[in-house]
């Protein structure tokens, strides 16, 4: 999968999937935030491509500026392609005092990428996010909605990565 190229993202198949999501949300433009999140989940790189944003504006009769207002406002919605497994490392205070710095360093070393970069095979991105309420298992990461906690050793971190194929 190439990144940053002009490959057509909005295939017939994806349009069909999007239509199903819109149907589940009753084609209701006021449910935009939930719609964007659901669409982002079915797109392999977990983002909202430009074509999709315009497609939604048309289908929902919502201004494209409203759509981009949401995309840029909310941290959980991205307009840039991410990896198949975006690794969100909690960077809030509870994880910080439970040594998320060594978690960051170990992830960088194991994946050979820096923050906000994508691995060569498109599998992982490393992201820094605000508290996701897993303070009882700090330090923690969240990958596609699943929380992995107590990541205190290199072994545990490697095991977590190996689970994500």
């Amino acid at each position, binding site marked *: 999968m190439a990144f940053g190229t002009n490959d057509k993202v909005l295939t017939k198949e994806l349009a069909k999937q999007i239509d199903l999501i819109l149907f589940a949300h009753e084609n209701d433009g006021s449910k935009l935030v939930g719609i964007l999140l659901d669409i982002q989940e079915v797109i392999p790189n977990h983002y909202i491509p430009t074509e999709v944003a315009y497609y939604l504006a048309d289908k929902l009769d919502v201004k494209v500026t409203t759509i981009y207002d949401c995309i840029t406002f909310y941290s959980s919605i991205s307009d840039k392609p991410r990896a198949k497994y975006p690794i969100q490392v909690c960077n809030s*205070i509870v994880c910080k005092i439970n040594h998320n710095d060594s978690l960051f360093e170990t992830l960088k070393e194991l994946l050979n990428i820096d923050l906000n970069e994508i691995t060569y095979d498109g599998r992982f991105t490393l992201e820094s996010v605000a508290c996701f*309420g897993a303070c009882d298992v700090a330090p923690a990461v969240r990958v596609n909605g699943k929380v992995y906690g107590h990541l205190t050793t290199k072994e545990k971190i490697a095991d977590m990565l190996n689970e994500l194929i």
Partner: protein
Amino acid sequence: MSKAVCFMTKNFGKYDVKSIGSYMAIGGFNALKKAVNMTGEEIADTLATAKIKGRGGAGYDMGRKWSQAKSVIADNKVVVCNADEGEPCTFKDRTLIEKDPFNLIEGMIIAGYTVDAQNGYIYLREEYSHLRPLILDAIKQAKTYGFLGENILGKGFNYNIHLYSGAGAYVCGEGTALVESIEGKSGRPRMKPPFIKQCGLYNLPTCVNNVESLSLVSSILLDDEKKYLNYGTEGSVGTKLVSVGGNVKNPGVFEIPFGVTVRDIVYGLAGGIVDDREIKLIQFGGASGKIATKSILDTPYTYEDLRKAGVGVGSGAILVVDERTSVIDFLRTTQEFFSHESCGQCTPCREGNRHIKLLLKKVAEGTHTTDDLASMRKIAKIMAMSSLCGLGETAQSALVSAMKNFEEDFQIK
């Protein structure tokens, strides 16, 4: 000896959270059945008698909130459940939903009945998306059993619950930002007035309650022996969920009667500090809360005693930080959080956070002057007085309390 109690957590682990039948087998929906034979005023009065304060952080009297919502005259009203638990170190609402989802649904239906609403909305933060299927399934089952929909329990009461998702914005925990987000827009807080109790979601009168507040309703209504009133102190009746985290051995959510000491919570329930280190500071109520030295350990955990000690209950979070972290590093992390989460709409919050961040950097480097400290105090005060919403108003709570309680950390070098 453990000081934890089981009043609102009594259902935890007692039923299959995926089955309404299992919930009903332990008395589920009895509170709703009782409620529909009462008037809305009577229900609000019952909550007022129990002196329940809203559990989201602001601590507004819940009985009063419901009776005000009931008295608003409108054809259509809504109830909103704020499940956008974004304060760092707060995870009690997550636990309540995970372990007792039907109780929340029941509390929301009672809320709808009390204030004459037709619709209820649960606003769940995106970070808890794994709880969506559980809630959706609970709503579906409640509908099948006739607890939601038309003519509920034959009382001519029509009510439905909808689940909406946040998308990773702390500010959406603020009432007006939350309703903006449900309406499909970016979550920037509105100007007040009008207050959302008169004109909120879709311009309808809106009654917003925290997950914990709603989860408490069923137990209160069924508490014929007034057991709840026996817990706590005169000024802080009942029990509270606290989420304890940081450098403690046993982080987690505990239900405590008001009045146990902070030491009971930190050392008794949370097991003390990892490797038995010394405590540097304790923050109460999340990132927007104030911080104290370990001298607060013997203070009873009540609204009034914590206020007297210069902190507050807030969201119920108790973050314990050991001696390895410096106060300034702690504040810089908190500042980082607010700089990221400020929506940027109003000047005091947007600019204030930015300048405090720069000034804290100087303090960390030891290059700050007396003027810098004065500037910090001034900016913090302006933010608290003139920000548009609670985020800007409380963003510098930790800093202000630190400048008072940890003066030596700000000394000019």
